[in-house]
């Protein structure tokens, strides 16, 4: 289906059996259940974030929550930490995840490994929270398996060398556990869409492997890769349970701060919590718009 999308975009794949009728278009009607569901379970609850973030403790309208947000250094720090981890895991997760899925799909590995990786990624992309935290504590914690192995076999004291799994870099390493699989799952269809004919055609025209990548494959894949990375960013930004189990009192993140205000055992300032959430929605909304843009560019090549 090599049809260019621009001239058919208005009518889709449907045949024009009759000339378009004037008047109201009813084409959106079958989409109604989906939209109603989205309104009921997404829009309505999300709107509550917005107006609650402007509510004070007695329910009055106020900008106070946002003022407090910008004044409190620990909350600003929470945003910085969350953004840092999200950037790190999006880029590192994107790069290595891409290499991994490339190796399995186009690297000539046995086909069974692809199935293995895909099913494993399905599970691993949702392995988070206390179990994941504990698994990494058991591996790279102060008395973890790997830490002990390194010190007993190689005489290398991991923690004395400055490494710690309980800071931003350590937490990022843990986050990779669900970021790599997410990248794998998202990029697999895009790699499938890289047609063999293009490779063969470029070889016929005399292009070497790297040249093929530079002029054909990467430009085609880049929007998908960037789009997937943005998805990874969002996934990381919204993660909560793993971080809390890990470094509950050491590292502040936005999701932890929100939870502390809304459902913690100590604080209760839902206005502030919702203001924090509103900030999150803005950050994420911007990244999602970026993602949508990337996806549209990418879909040109996947038809």
């Amino acid at each position, binding site marked *: 289906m090599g049809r260019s999308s621009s001239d058919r975009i208005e009518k889709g*794949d449907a045949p024009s059996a009759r000339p378009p009728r004037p008047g109201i278009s009813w084409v959106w009607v079958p*989409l109604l259940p989906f939209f109603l*569901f989205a309104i009921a379970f997404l829009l309505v609850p999300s709107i509550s974030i917005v107006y609650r973030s402007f509510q004070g403790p007695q329910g009055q309208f106020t900008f106070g929550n946002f003022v407090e947000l910008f004044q409190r250094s620990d909350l600003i720090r929470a945003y910085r930490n969350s953004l840092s981890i999200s950037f790190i895991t999006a880029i590192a997760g994107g790069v290595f995840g891409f290499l991994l899925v490339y190796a399995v799909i186009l690297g000539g590995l046995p086909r069974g490994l692809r199935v293995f990786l*895909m099913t494993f990624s*399905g599970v691993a992309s949702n392995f988070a929270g206390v179990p*994941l935290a504990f698994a990494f504590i058991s591996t790279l914690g102060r008395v973890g398996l790997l830490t002990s192995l390194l010190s007993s076999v190689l005489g290398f004291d991991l923690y004395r060398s400055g490494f710690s799994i309980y800071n931003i870099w350590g937490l990022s390493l843990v986050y990779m556990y669900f970021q790599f699989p997410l990248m794998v799952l998202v990029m697999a269809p895009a790699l499938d869409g890289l047609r063999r004919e293009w490779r063969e055609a470029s070889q016929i025209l005399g292009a070497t492997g790297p040249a093929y990548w530079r002029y054909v494959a990467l430009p085609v894949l880049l929007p998908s890769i960037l789009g997937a990375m943005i998805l990874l960013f969002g996934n990381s930004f919204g993660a909560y349970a793993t971080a809390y189990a890990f470094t509950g009192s050491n590292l502040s993140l936005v999701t932890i701060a929100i939870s502390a205000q809304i459902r913690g055992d100590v604080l209760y300032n*839902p206005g502030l919590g919702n203001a924090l959430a509103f900030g*999150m*929605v803005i950050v994420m909304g911007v990244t999602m718009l970026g993602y949508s843009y990337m996806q549209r560019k990418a879909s040109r090549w996947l038809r």
Partner: protein
Amino acid sequence: MRRAGVWAWLLFGLGMIYFFLPLIASFLFSLRKLQDRLSFEAYRLVFSDPGFAYSFGSSLRWAAFTIVISLLLVVPTVYWVHLRAPRFRPIVEFITLMPFVVPAVVLAFGLIRAYARPPLMLTSSPAILVGAYVVLSLPYMFRAVDNGLRAIDVRTLTEAAQSLGAGWVTVLWRVIFPNLRVALLSGMFLTFAIVVGEYTFAALLAWPAFGPYVVLTFQSKAYEAVALSTLSFGLTWASIGVIQWLGRGGPGQAQVAGAR
């Protein structure tokens, strides 16, 4: 097909080390329940706890409902977008990305606030939990269906079916769904993994589920908790493997079994 290069094996090997080392560490820890020797005692204790079967069974139930409703919601919608309403694609896609935009904790509270009172009293019914789970599954279901529809000629299939007298329901049910079977698999098993592992909504909406059960076990027990998490990883993986195996073969873009 090209011979696998050294780099491919190296990358794959590195990936596997990264993924399996924590699992192995957890597994080894879970075997240490009885002092001085390795045993499966922790696993025996996990299985003998009625809460395990109850909460896992509850989550399986939620997963089944979520998958069904998500399929019924997403497939006709994306089909229609492909066929007749491509202009609505950006907004549909944006909606499916919303779970990444709004944090679960806040969404849960929003749901509670909105649906705690008549006439839209939903908080006393599990529909609110399943609804929340369907929202979480949207990004994955949409991608799966979208990719699947791209691989088949929607227009021709629809035309052919309609020229044979099929109505819309028949077209969807007997033509589109079967052709999408393989593509739907990835969406289904991701939804399954999400629901079984999910904690926030189940806890806040106070319904029995596996996620809160695992967290609770970690609060009060050591070896059994790690055994539980290892077990749940394995069970989820096995379930996904089963879904994958059941849906093998058939047309439509193979999401998992490789087009090459």
